[in-house]
């Protein structure tokens, strides 16, 4: 299991790299571990969907303020709701930067950026990389501890590599977050081979 809390005690900015399989478990797990005020920037799941995920996992979101950059690309939503501020799109980097900058003045204990790799769907890699550098520099001027999520796969390596060089520490999720690997008897390669051999022997 990823121990984000202790890593954040030692470092201000973290990049947490995970696979899409673990993603849902990791995002619940990280918020559960962090106690304090959290500013959660989402470019992936909508605010409603995130709220549902957290409520299902019984995570208290009273101390979480969301910046939702995805809902406006899908449906008509107001500019703001209770504990959520909507940004036009994950590709609206100027707007996103302005909003996050404004929120950082509030000295949140933690900022979670979910996820840097999703920016590439809406923006060119170079622009996303520039945005990340600027954002990390902004964060370093404050006391807010930040976790950036990065999802492995596809053409995501460029932004992960770039952000990895700018943050204080890069963590790769070990795959144990909420997912237990169970060995089911009789479905291993050896078992299958044995079964085939037995079948052939019977037929002969």
């Amino acid at each position, binding site marked *: 299991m990823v121990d984000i809390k202790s890593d954040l005690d030692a470092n201000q900015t973290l990049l947490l790299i995970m696979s899409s399989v673990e993603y849902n478990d990791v995002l619940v797990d990280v918020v559960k571990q962090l106690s304090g*005020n959290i500013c959660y920037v989402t470019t992936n799941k909508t605010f409603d969907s995130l709220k549902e995920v957290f409520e299902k996992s019984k995570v208290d979101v009273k101390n979480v303020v969301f910046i939702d950059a995805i809902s406006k690309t899908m449906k008509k939503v107001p500019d703001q709701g209770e504990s959520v501020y909507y940004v*036009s799109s994950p590709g609206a980097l100027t707007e996103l930067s302005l909003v996050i900058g404004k929120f950082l003045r509030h*000295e949140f204990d933690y900022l979670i950026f979910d996820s840097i790799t999703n920016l590439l769907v809406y923006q060119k890699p170079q622009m996303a990389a520039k945005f990340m550098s600027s954002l990390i520099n902004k964060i370093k001027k404050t006391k807010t501890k930040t976790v950036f999520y990065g999802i492995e796969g596809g053409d995501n390596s460029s932004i992960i590599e770039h952000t990895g060089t700018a943050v204080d520490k890069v963590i790769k999720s070990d795959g144990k977050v909420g997912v237990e690997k169970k060995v089911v008897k009789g479905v291993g390669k050896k078992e299958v081979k044995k079964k085939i051999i037995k079948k052939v022997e019977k037929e002969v």
Partner: protein
Amino acid sequence: MSFSGSVLLMVAIVLGLIASVVTYMNSRKLKGEVFEKPMIYFALGIFLATLSLIAVTFFQGVFSEMTVELIHDISFILGLGLMLLASVKLTRFLQGLSGFEKKLPKNLPSKVK
């Protein structure tokens, strides 16, 4: 009074045209953002204000004096109006953001200055 031949007016027209093109091109870079529309309004506003200068410089020999005056006045008013609209839109966005930011302490129970 004819403005044709005034070098300063020519410089103003060239600058106005460049400013409107550059502003419009920058607005394209902000596609989908909240700043896209205000930038387009600014570009159009600058262009119309420039058009009013173009009208008094080049149209005087082509159209009647009244027509030139109408083009000049209307484009100038519309141009300034569009720039005002752009400013209002930007102000509204910034006020909305500041308003939400001011509300934040109520939402956060544990610690916020």
